[in-house]
Structures are given as C-alpha cells and as structure tokens.
C-alpha cells in the first residue's frame, strides 16, 4: 500500500469484511482476544514504567487483528510460532496471561522458570513454540514440526509469524524454501507493519509487495488487510484448507501498522508526522471490529463494554497471580542445560572449600 493513499481520510469509516462464516460466539471470542491483547499491552507498559519489568516491552498496539484473526483459523492440534507482536496469537492458542506476565516479571512460575523473557517459552501440548530473538529462525523450526507430523502421519498445519523485517534474513529464506520444496503445510504470516525498528519497508525489500515473494518460492501467496480481523480469519482459513489438503505452503502478507516504537524506549522520531495519528484514528483494528459488530447488530455497545470490563478484571486477576509468585532461587540458574540425571548442574565453583 502506498503511504499517501493510506493517509487519506477514508470515505466512510472502515469496518470489517462481511463475507464470513463466523458465528456470533466466534465474534465474541475474537473481540475478547483482541481486548485481552490490547489491555495486556497496556499493563506491561505500566509495569515497565514501574520498573517491575527489567527486560524489553514490545507492543502490538494497532496490529492485534493480524495475530488474533489468523490464529483463530487453526485447530487445537495445529502449531504456531509467534513473534513479539503476536501476543494475541498466544492467547488464542490457550496460553494464559499469567504465564506471560510471569515471564515478563522473571518469576519462578514462568514456563521458562525465569531463564528467558517475554513469551520466550513453549507449550507443546497447546501447539505453542515461543520464539528466540534471532529473527527468521522459527520458520525452519516450524518446517521441522511439520516434517515430523508428516512422518508420523499426524494431520497438522502450522503458522510461523514474522515481521516484514525478518524476511531479509537468511533463516527466513532457507526455512520457507525448505517447507515449499517438501510441500509442508506451513503458513508463513508476514506482518508488514511499516517498520522494522526504525527501518521503513522500502529499505527492507525492493519488491512492491511481500506477497510477491511467494511466486519465487513456488507457493501460494495471499494478501490481507491485517487490521480487519474477519478478513485475517477468512484468509488464514483459506490458507489452512489449502495447506491441510496437501497443496503445500502458503505465504500471507498482512498489511498493518506498528503504532508504538520498536520497544518502549523508542520515541519514533523517524516516523513522518501524522502517520501514527492517521492509523489510530481511521484504521484501528478494534474500532473497526466494534463498528462491524454494532452495525451488523451482532452486539450492542453495552454488550461490548461488558466484555471489556470482564477482560479488565480477568487480566488484573491474572497479573495478581503472576506478581504474587516467588522469584526464582538463584541456584536454579545452574539447572537444565542438560538432562541433570546424566550431567550434573552447572553450579558455581567454591574457591575456598575445594
């Protein structure tokens, strides 16, 4: 999408696509996930300001629909590897806010027991494999997940999420090409949110559209308005059906926008004036969905407010659970490099006793 086109005031307020098979209970769930995602974000920002979070805080403000909508098209047995702005996909996959809070806060109860941050953890039973920081790496890991599924005759598809910046890595290329050659049911969602840290899209990639990369890999490419949660769902559903029926991999380009800086410290001075405000005012995924839900008479404003209230309470409860958990015992740093029944933990040397 061309920026000047983007920045024009839409003729009428943007809503969501009306061609959908989603039912009322799906809409309720989607709305709830979107709200959880946004409010979770707000809480982590608060915790960062209170210096309770020592690591980085990365926001998905304004792009919640991409992760939530696409992930909603998966079955329980399917897998995802989200990136830092896909916290919404984690919730859809059944990861609890308390687990991610605990990880952000470095608590012993975090699934990574404090060894790593954000949602850098995994829950294989829930089909969730958290990322590492190195961008692009998860694409081939997910190809491996699907290769195993194929070998074990298990019916499974997977989504690997990447930012548009990560498409520049060698790891991305090798992973997606591998999946394509093996005809693995991998769906790579490229979230084109305009910036990779401070780097605008045109400095990342000379192709006009990221979806065009699909041609080069010989796979199906789909493009979607990443701020339309219904369209994200429908597009992912199409991709899932295609992949599940043995047609191979899919690349989805979701066009969205990163309204916050790269992380909390980034003041976004490199962003042209008016751009963030335009997206906030005219193309906010949650506002669009609210408009859709009320215009289509699916939910009243009051009903939506009630969901919001419930989510706020739910998140505060989840936070309390996470915050009241203990910090890890220092010595546990030494555990689990290897299977400690075979290799002893990596305890510190004692210089005076030995």
């Amino acid at each position: 999408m061309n920026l000047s086109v983007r920045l024009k005031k839409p003729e009428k307020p943007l809503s969501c696509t009306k061609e959908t098979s989603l039912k009322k209970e799906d809409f309720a769930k989607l709305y709830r996930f979107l709200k959880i995602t946004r409010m979770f974000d707000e809480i982590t920002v608060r915790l960062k300001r209170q210096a309770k979070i020592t690591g980085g805080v990365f926001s998905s403000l304004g792009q919640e629909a991409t992760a939530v909508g696409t992930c909603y098209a998966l079955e329980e047995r399917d897998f995802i590897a989200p990136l830092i702005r896909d916290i919404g996909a984690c919730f859809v996959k059944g990861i609890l806010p308390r687990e991610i809070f605990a990880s952000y806060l470095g608590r012993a109860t975090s699934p990574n027991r404090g060894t790593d941050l954000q949602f850098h953890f995994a829950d294989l039973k829930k089909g969730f494999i958290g990322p590492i920081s190195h961008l692009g790496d998860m694409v081939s890991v997910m190809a491996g997940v699907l290769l195993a599924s194929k070998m074990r005759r298990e019916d499974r598809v997977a989504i690997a999420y990447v930012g548009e910046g990560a498409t520049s890595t060698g790891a991305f290329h090798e992973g997606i090409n591998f999946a394509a050659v093996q005809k693995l049911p991998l769906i790579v969602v490229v979230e084109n949110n305009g910036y990779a840290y401070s780097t605008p899209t045109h400095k990342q990639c000379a192709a006009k559209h990221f979806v065009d990369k699909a041609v080069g890999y010989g796979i199906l490419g789909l493009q979607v308005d990443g701020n339309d949660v219904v369209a994200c769902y429908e597009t992912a559903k199409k991709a899932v059906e295609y992949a599940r029926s043995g047609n191979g991999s899919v690349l989805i380009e979701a066009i969205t926008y990163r309204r916050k800086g790269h992380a909390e410290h980034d003041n976004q001075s490199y962003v042209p004036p008016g751009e963030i405000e335009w997206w906030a005012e005219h193309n906010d995924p949650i506002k669009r969905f609210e408009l859709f839900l009320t215009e289509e008479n699916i939910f009243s404003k009051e009903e939506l407010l009630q969901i919001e209230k419930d989510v706020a309470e739910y998140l505060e409860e989840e936070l309390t659970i996470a915050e009241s958990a203990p910090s890890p015992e220092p010595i546990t740093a030494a555990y689990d490099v290897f299977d400690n029944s075979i290799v002893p933990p990596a305890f510190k040397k004692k210089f005076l006793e030995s």
Partner: protein
Amino acid sequence: MGKEVTLLEAIRQGLWEEMKRDESVFIIGEDVGIYGGAFKLTEGFIDEFGPERVIDTPISEAAIVGVACGAALMGMKPVAEFQFIDFISCGFDMLTNYAAKSRYRGCGAISAVFRGPCGSGVRGGPFHSLNAESFFLNTAGLKMVEPSTPYDAKGLIKAAIRDPDPVLFFEHKKLYRLPRIKQELPEEDYIVPIGKARIAREGKDLSIITFGAQVLNALDAAEILEKEDGLQVEVLDLRTLAPLDKPAILDTVKKTNRVIILHEASVTGGIGGEIAAIIAEEAFEWLDAPILRIGSIDTPVPFAPQLEDYYLPSIGEVVEAARRLANY
C-alpha cells in the same frame, strides 16, 4: 583536554574523526542512520556524512559482513555494526570463512571493523547478553579487541579502522554510559595499538588477568584485598583478545607468581583456558600456586535478576579465589 566522556562517546569520537580523516571509512548496519543505532552510538553521523557513508541495511547480518568484505577488497574501510553482538552468529560463516581466510588464501586483505554491544548483567536474557570472543578465538585471521575505558575505546576504534586486517570490536554495553569510568581524552589524534595489554593496577602479590566490564570487578576485588588482607593485586586489562599480548601476560605472572584469569563468558571453552595454557607452557616455573579461572557458569545467560546474578562472576568470588591463592 576536554570534558569527561563516556565509553560510548569515546567510540563515537573515534569513529567520527576517522570518517573525517579518511573518506573511505563508512558505516553499515541496521538502524544506524536516522535512528543512530540501537544505542545511539552513530546518532548524527548521517547528517554529517550522508546516507552514502552511513548505510541502513535490511536485517541481514550475513550480507552486512559479506558486503563489508567485498567493499574492503575494493579499498573501502567498512565499519559494520551488529545491533547486538548476539546477532554476530548470523554472520558467523562470512566472518570465519570469508573475512578470516581471505588474506591467507591470497585473495586480498579484509581491512574492516565489525563492532557491536556485547556483555551480560543488563537483564537482557539469553539473546541480548553474549560475550562472543571464544567463538572466534579458534579462528585464525580475526583480531579481537574489547576496551574497558573511554581512552582505550577511542584509541582502539581508531587502531581497528586503520588496521590492515579484520577486527572484531566488542563494546560492553554495561560500560557504555557508566559514569564511574568517564575520562577526559587527549585533544590530539592517538591510537591504542592492537595487541597490547595495559596494567590497570600495579601489584606484586597476585595478578588478575581480565578485560571488558570485568576489569571493574577485578579493581574492586583488588581494593578489598588490599584493605582486608594487605595484598597488592595487579590487574592486567588485556584490551586485545586476539592476538593476545603474551609478553604482558608472562611478565605479570613472573612478577606475582599467582594468577587469576577472570572473564564474563562461561568458563568452559572460554579465553581463560587459552591464557592458562600459555602460562602453564611458558611460565610454569614461576608459578607458586595453581592458575585459577573465574567466569560465568556453563549455562546460557538467564534473564531473571536472581538467576543472572548467580550466573555471573562476582567480586566475592574473585576475593575468595585470591585468598585461596595467597594462602596456597
């Protein structure tokens, strides 16, 4: 002499002056231009030197290193930045196979600098805390430096840029803006030669060989040992990690006869082992006690403060080890 500057400012100054002095010097990396780099080290450079000499790249470390190699072959002087040294892993192939071996293979020297923030202790977790030196120590053809003072940082970045071979330049992010180490720098042009260590504190009873942020732990331990035990501890700041300053290492061992090697990376396979081997081979008769290595435990760098503090070497451990050596 001007005002006191931080280590980060000292590197900025060195880079800036080299770019002024030599038009072939250019900067290449992720978000180094308008944004000025993740740590703002190159802030303002693009305004002065333009986007042709301060190049924002896609997220492609392999290409950044490869492009730097190619440009260096053609007579340019690239200074490539890794946003965090952890991402050097993505450029590992290019560094170890291309940059390191080019001269040896008769294909031309690669005069280029590869720099970035390294080090733990900032709650960065397993992927933003790396000390990478020992990954490269076993690769002939790469020089490595890591300054612990602003003076050395400026002198070494200049020396690295002027060096005819590839130099990995590690900058401990904990030192970047640390007020404690601020220094006034000379007005005139100077370099700190690559390959030369520095005595950070003189002593006669025991040596601590170290570098980077651990120099501060060594100095603090030395202070405690002087006050509480009357021990005079010598601290040798290596500054260059490859090639090692063997004469300086052997001199301090011969002077004090007791030695601790302290580094922040995990002990096993760390640079301390190499230094210990050099001492054992070449100064065995001078030793009055075993060589002790202190480093982080053999795990990834954990995130939670309680875990990272356990992981890292502490001043207390250095003091304990020194007492053991002193009483040996």
